[in-house]
């Protein structure tokens, strides 16, 4: 059995807002359950995928791991994030700082806005080294250039003097990756790292991430995406999220060859898949993702599910292990 490096137990994160859907505004702030009761482990040397439509709580889960939820309006209301035996959520802001960017790093969806527009790349890279211990500027600069080269930024010595706006989206993402690698983190969380990029550049970035993973040995990656293709090509194990909950969790092979949850199989059927002839119309999932302020009390997918039973609306199913390491949350598999 592989070693667990991260254990997430019963994580729930809410956002408060004056809102109730249906066009009417409430007077008080009410909590919207962006993530509720999420538990999963990350093992050494694996790529764990988190997939789901936008609004399903993927990013919020990721930010919660490093306690990066902006408060207000957000709040982590329960849960433990245990990294190598330590609960990160119990640490003071000064203590958790040592983990951020060093043990666990993140890269984001929009490389353009994720870099500070008025600071040179140089400064943004060097500060990572300098705020995690006593590296002097010259040393930090040398290391930064090395990392940028490693991340495939051409002309790194010159480019490091520039501002983010003079780089293309792909180059900006390379800078983000270089920054995230500063201390050879044991876990890299990538939140839709290629969604904003062209396919050809997406292929470059994914390739780079695989290379780095291979070189760094025992490090792990959490790959967040809505793109099932990326899941299939990059990940070992997958969590499917919907309505702030994990609906299915399996290794990639089982997920694609034997999807259990109606949402998972509907999603796999509905995306246009290149190279497969579609006879006429695409399969679709009717309706849309529920609003976090108006989640159905039972199964979160019940208003769109073609297999819905009476019990689905009333009672939320449990996440159950159906076959080895294949979990699903659905009444079809209960009892």
């Amino acid at each position, binding site marked *: 059995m592989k070693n667990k490096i991260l254990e997430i137990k019963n994580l729930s994160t809410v956002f408060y807002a004056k809102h109730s859907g249906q066009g009417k505004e409430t007077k008080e702030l009410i909590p919207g359950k962006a993530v509720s009761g999420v538990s999963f482990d990350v093992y050494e040397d694996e790529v764990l995928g988190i997939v789901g439509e936008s609004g399903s709580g993927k990013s919020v889960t990721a930010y919660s791991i490093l306690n990066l939820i902006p408060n207000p309006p957000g709040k982590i209301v329960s849960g433990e994030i245990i990294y190598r035996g330590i609960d990160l959520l119990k640490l003071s802001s000064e203590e958790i700082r040592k983990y951020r960017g060093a043990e666990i790093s993140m890269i984001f969806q929009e490389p353009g806005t994720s870099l500070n527009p*008025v600071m040179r790349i140089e400064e943004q890279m060097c500060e990572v080294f300098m705020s995690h211990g006593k590296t002097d500027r010259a040393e930090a600069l040398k290391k930064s250039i090395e990392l940028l080269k490693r991340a495939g930024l051409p002309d790194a010595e010159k480019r490091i003097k520039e501002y983010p706006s003079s780089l293309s989206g792909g180059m900006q993402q390379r800078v983000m990756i270089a920054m995230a690698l500063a201390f050879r983190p044991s876990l890299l969380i990538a939140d839709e790292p290629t969604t904003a990029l062209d396919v050809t550049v997406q292929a470059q970035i994914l390739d780079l991430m695989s290379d780095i993973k291979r070189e760094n040995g025992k490090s792990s990656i959490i790959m967040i995406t809505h793109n099932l293709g990326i899941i299939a090509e990059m990940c070992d194990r997958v969590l499917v999220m919907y309505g702030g909950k994990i609906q299915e969790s399996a290794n990639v092979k089982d997920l694609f060859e034997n999807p259990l949850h109606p949402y998972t199989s509907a999603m796999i059927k509905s995306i246009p898949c290149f190279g497969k002839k579609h006879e006429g119309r695409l399969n679709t999932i009717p309706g849309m993702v529920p609003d976090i302020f108006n989640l159905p009390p039972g199964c979160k997918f019940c208003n769109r599910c073609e297999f819905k039973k009476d019990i689905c609306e009333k009672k939320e199913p449990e996440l159950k292990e159906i076959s080895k390491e294949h979990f699903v949350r659905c009444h079809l598999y209960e009892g």
Partner: protein
Amino acid sequence: MLRYFFRRILLIVPTFIGITFITFLILQFVPGGPLEREMLKLQMGNVVSGSESGAVGSNRTGMTNIPESALKEIREFYGFDRPVPERYLEWVLNLCRLNFGKSYAYSEPVIDVITSRFSVSIYFGLIGFVLTYLICVPLGVIKAARSGSKFDLISSIVVFLGYSTPGWAFGALMLIFFGGGSFLNVFPLGGFRSDDFDNMNLFGQIYDQLRHTILPVISYLLGSFATLTILTKNSVIENLNQDYIRTAYAKGLSKKRVIYVHALRNSLIPIVTGLGQFLGILLAGSILIEKVFNIQGIGLLAYDSIINRDYPVIMGLLVFQSLILLTGNIITDFLYAAVDPRVKYK
């Protein structure tokens, strides 16, 4: 970039000529000009002397009462006998030699009148300007960092009270309480310096100048204080919600560094943008505050010269003010490019 600013500086010339020529032209048609004033004076004299001699004024227009020769003299004295373009050209040529002409009202060279008043206004303007930025920007940043705290709330109330009080009224109130001795004799009743300033030793002089400075500067600033503080606060808060702030935290930076380096640098952009114009406004002085504190500043001079139709002074002030505004705009652009690397002028 350099070429852009060179062009901008060159562009001052036509803009400047445009502004001054139009004003020059308008001044010719405003009623109550110096010609009419002189005529009125003469006419009044005539009426008085006419009634003494017992002759009945047969002509109501009075114009005929002024001898043609006197009229001509006045016209020549003011140069009104020549066409407007010619006089404008002459004015410009004189301007190039820094000759602004003579004030009608003060019978002194305009340049002397303006510079003596201007030094007072620059003194108050610059002190106010520096103080506002030194206080408001840090205050705004702290308010943003501790948004929603008691400190934030109380300082907001104070700042807005100041905003809604007219500066001159506040000044007058302060004078009643602290000035001259009715209640407390902390501050003088006004003026730029005490009369015996020249006889004081250095410390005495500094103390005296300070005593004369504090109340007017506070009154000057009262309005702009709130604007700049809130602008800073909002700008910092807006930036704290940006994606790159999340990156900065995710990198493991301290909260201090995130706010005071990452967010602040971006927040400076709108603050710097207002700098040039703000300086222009402060240097323009304020008639009411100058009146209250009896300061011989530029605001009062402008007011008096318009009332007195003191054309050379009006034109002189126009030259100064438009030069300040135009250079202020260029400085703004320059600073804008300096704080925001994305801005590229071509």
